[in-house]
């Protein structure tokens, strides 16, 4: 009997199934109308759980993105007043959050915690009995299914919708499903539902390569939108309820392979990382993770990419032909990275440098560094370092950074026509100022035609109605790559004269451009100025070639905090930060392999407060393994260091490309 039932049911099912497959592309008006009705019903089913999220206060911009401050959307995930939304709405750091329900009620909301991995924020309002939603299980999500994106931004009374299909599942390293519905700040934080009104996921901006909260916004409404699968949202919410933020789980390995398709051979295990604790070593090949087979780096990222700090990870490795299982406990944050250091400043490869150099010429040796201890000297030519031929300084840099502090290896070099070999032991990077550093000498610009303007220039930046000034040395040829010192002046005084008096000779000697964006008259720098400042640099780069390994940010008392925010921007990369007369407490910064950064703190002897601040700042920076050098000097009466000190600062900037 039951067989017959099954048979009949399956016949009926097949009929319906065939009909609905056909309908996806039907021009039959009845089908079109039925689908339209189904979209509306799906919205009606979930709409009572879709809320509007309003924020008050905060900045206009989050990083480089202008955010209007308008409303966003949230979804009820618990009748007891828990609402999940996109962390995007909080990128401007608002001071107060308000949730408005479709039925007209408004509630002040408390931000409980944020999931930085999936870019979700959990809110709580003081109410019970909120309507919740039905979830479409993750395993049922398939490309081609209808996906209806719902927001509550234009009006609090009625939701706004966009209809599309699921384009792909398991996108952005397993974190998201992709849809061709139009996803934008108009529906971030809202649900994406299927044709039955079951929630498939929560809409958030995402980017495959960039984890910042606003990354992915730039492709809004493009037909590529993302949603975090609702099963994952619920799992995240259960953890967020404890009030602790969630972050990407970190393991602390780097792979030899450059791309994602390469095999995951471990090239570096970070000191003190979970990978090191688990017993992973350089040269191991990862073959499996949490029960999934791993053939390439991408497979591995698909597994690890969706895990939080605190999550366990089982890895299977191949070491010398033997298979091993290792247990790893991921962390939210790795111990700060100690950049290994040889202690040399390489000779810069200029346009007239011969292409067939046998090795990297040492321009200067940093006192007390491993190179100094090993007896290396300026003008020695490094031929082979730790087994790598160093015909270019970039090869030398890679050879050193793929090692760890304390690693020992041989250095083969050429001195006076003779090859020699010495052992060195890498130390942690030092920010010491080289005592001697030859000036940058290149062929004279002479009467080169179409050479861009040099000397003191002042330029208004189109679109801002604001300007910057800069000093460009006169004598360099047009293809010369300049180092850069960006000066952020204290509010109310540009100090242009003092700066020019001190820096002109230094810039000439060191091939540096001094650039100074101007703050709005008498106004302090704010986070809203960051994009302008970044664009000034971009404008400079349109005219002059820039050496991206020698860029320093020069701050003065009262510009420290905004300057540090500038460091966080991805588009502007400084390797050095010069703080003069600083009286701002530095936040805890941490060194990472991705970002080379060092500090030079200069305070006037006479100012005990500033000296004290620098001591404290240096201590904090050292804790974060960021190289720092402290100078306590007599200042000129104008509150700026004497020429001698500026010369030293110039040498420091000129040696930022140290290895």
């Amino acid at each position, binding site marked *: 009997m039951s067989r017959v039932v099954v048979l009949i049911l399956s016949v009926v099912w097949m009929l319906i199934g065939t009909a609905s497959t056909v309908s996806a592309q039907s021009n039959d008006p009845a089908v079109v109308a039925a689908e339209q009705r189904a979209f509306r019903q799906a919205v009606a089913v979930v709409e009572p759980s879709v809320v509007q999220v309003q924020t*008050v206060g905060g900045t206009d911009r989050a990083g480089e993105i202008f955010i209007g401050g*308008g409303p966003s959307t949230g979804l009820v995930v618990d009748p007891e007043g828990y609402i999940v939304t996109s962390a995007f709405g909080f990128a401007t750091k608002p001071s107060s959050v308000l949730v408005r329900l479709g039925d007209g009620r408004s509630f002040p909301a408390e931000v409980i915690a944020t999931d930085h991995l999936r870019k979700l924020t959990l809110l709580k309002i003081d109410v019970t009995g909120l309507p919740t939603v039905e979830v479409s299980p993750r395993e049922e999500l398939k490309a081609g299914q209808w996906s209806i994106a719902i927001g509550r931004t234009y009006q609090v009374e009625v939701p706004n919708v966009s209809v599309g299909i699921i384009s792909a599942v398991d996108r952005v390293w397993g974190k998201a499903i992709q849809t061709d519905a139009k996803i934008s700040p108009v529906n971030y934080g809202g649900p994406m539902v299927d044709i039955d009104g079951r929630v498939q996921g929560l809409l958030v901006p995402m980017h495959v390569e960039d984890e910042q909260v606003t990354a992915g916004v730039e492709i809004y409404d493009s037909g590529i939108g993302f949603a975090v699968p609702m099963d994952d949202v619920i799992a995240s919410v259960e953890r967020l309820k404890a009030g602790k933020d969630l972050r990407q789980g970190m393991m602390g390995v780097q792979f030899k392979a450059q791309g994602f398709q390469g095999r995951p051979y471990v090239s570096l295990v970070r000191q003190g990382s979970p990978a090191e604790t688990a017993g992973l070593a350089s040269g191991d090949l990862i073959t499996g993770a949490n029960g999934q087979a791993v053939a390439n780096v991408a497979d591995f990222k698909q597994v690890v990419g969706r895990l939080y700090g605190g999550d366990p990870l089982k890895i299977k490795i191949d070491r010398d032909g033997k298979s091993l299982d290792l247990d790893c406990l991921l962390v939210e944050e790795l111990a700060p990275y100690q950049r290994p250091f040889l202690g040399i400043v390489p000779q810069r490869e200029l346009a007239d440098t011969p292409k067939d150099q046998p090795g990297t010429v040492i321009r200067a040796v940093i006192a007390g560094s491993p190179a100094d201890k090993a007896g290396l000297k300026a003008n020695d030519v490094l031929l082979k370092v730790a087994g790598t031929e160093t015909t270019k300084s970039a090869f030398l840099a890679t050879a050193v950074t793929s090692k760890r502090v304390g690693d020992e290896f041989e250095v083969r070099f050429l001195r006076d026509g003779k090859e020699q070999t010495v052992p060195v032991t890498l130390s942690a990077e030092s920010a010491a100022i080289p005592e001697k550093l030859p000036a940058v000498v290149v062929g004279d610009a002479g009467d080169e035609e179409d050479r861009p303007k040099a000397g003191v220039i002042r330029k208004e930046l189109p679109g801002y109605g604001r300007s910057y000034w800069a000093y460009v040395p006169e004598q360099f040829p047009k293809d010369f790559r300049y180092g850069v010192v960006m000066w952020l002046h204290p509010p109310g005084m540009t100090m242009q004269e003092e700066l020019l008096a001190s820096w002109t000779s230094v810039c000439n000697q060191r091939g540096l451009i001094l650039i100074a964006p101007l703050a709005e008259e008498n106004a302090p720098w704010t986070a809203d100025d960051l994009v302008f400042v970044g664009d000034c640099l971009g404008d400079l780069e349109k005219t002059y070639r820039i050496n991206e390994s020698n860029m320093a940010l020069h701050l003065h008392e009262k510009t420290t905090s905004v300057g540090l925010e500038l460091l966080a921007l991805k588009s502007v990369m400084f390797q050095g930060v010069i703080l003069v007369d600083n009286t701002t407490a530095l936040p805890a910064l941490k060194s990472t392999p991705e970002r080379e950064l060092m500090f030079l703190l200069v305070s006037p002897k006479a100012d005990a407060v500033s000296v004290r601040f620098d001591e404290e700042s240096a201590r904090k920076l050292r804790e974060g393994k960021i190289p720092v050098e402290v100078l306590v000097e007599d200042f000129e009466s104008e509150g700026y260091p004497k020429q001698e000190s500026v010369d030293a600062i110039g040498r420091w900037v000129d040696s930022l490309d140290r290895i």
Partner: protein
Amino acid sequence: MSGRFKHVPLLLIVASCLLSLVWSSTCAIAQEPVEESRIDVYEKSLPTVVKIFGSGGLARLEGYGSGILISKEGHILTVWSHLLDRGVVTVVLNDGRRFEAKRLGAEPSLDLAILKIEAEDLPFVDLTKAKLPAIGTRVIGLSNMFKVANGDEPVSAIHGVVAAVTPLQARRGSFDFSYQGAAIIVDAITNNPGAAGGLLVTTDGTPIGMIGKELKDKRINVWINYAIPLNELAGAAEEIITGKFKPADYGKKNPDDESVTLRNYVPSDLGIILVPDVVRRTPCYVDHLRKESFAAGFDLKPDDLILFVNQQLVQSQQELKDLFGAMNAGDPVELTVRRGNRLHVVKFNMPLKNRQDEMP
């Protein structure tokens, strides 16, 4: 039990037969031409949309646009734009015929202009048939976007659904856009260069809107895709056609139309002292209430955050000043205030302005 249900298989067979009967009959009904298919709608609506060529071509202002035929004698509804500023305005019909168009009139507040070509028996959109669609309604947008259509090629179609119907709060560059009435927001990327003046129609053939210029939403800072409802435009269009409407001066937008910022009241007039307004979006936190002032007895405390004034969200002190500034003595005021995790309401009527003289 089993006795009661022994005919279940039979019942199911009958049921499924019935079901398939119902199924096939629905399908049969659907085959009949009672409703138009999307293709019918497309083919019928297409000839009503025209390509317009006029001034422009410089500084990212396109020299092309779209328009909708709204009478069989050749009246054309389009947007009021630089395209019509000077020189010859050329209209190209769906069949490739070209006409020099006469400017009949414009209504800048609706961003609307009416053109006229000398032709007869043209297919047209009957504005009296226009409706406001519900959210989720499937729509087709027809326009000369990006000038993809060359010569006598028909304009381009794009499909989507109605995302929202909402008052337009948009800006063009850094200026607020003049039209602030209802807009049909769609989830297709309809508002492209040259698309303004195009037609938005539902998949059952109901004309609903004229695609507008490229604008950004003021609050959310995203480009919006929208059409202005035809029934908002029908009245002015009719007046211009019948000559009852005074045509506006082309190219001259009166800057004096911008509303004057009123400053009738500021919060401190009442004795409500807010924290210093230091950043662009300083929230309206109460610092203190001035002693013996009008507000002295209010249930407001330091650190209370004023969130709404008469149900309108205030996100910054500037917004609060704007709202207070436009009020008059006697106006009822309802402040919704956040204290800790609670909202509470303070109600009063705006006092006579000269009361502040009595304030110490």
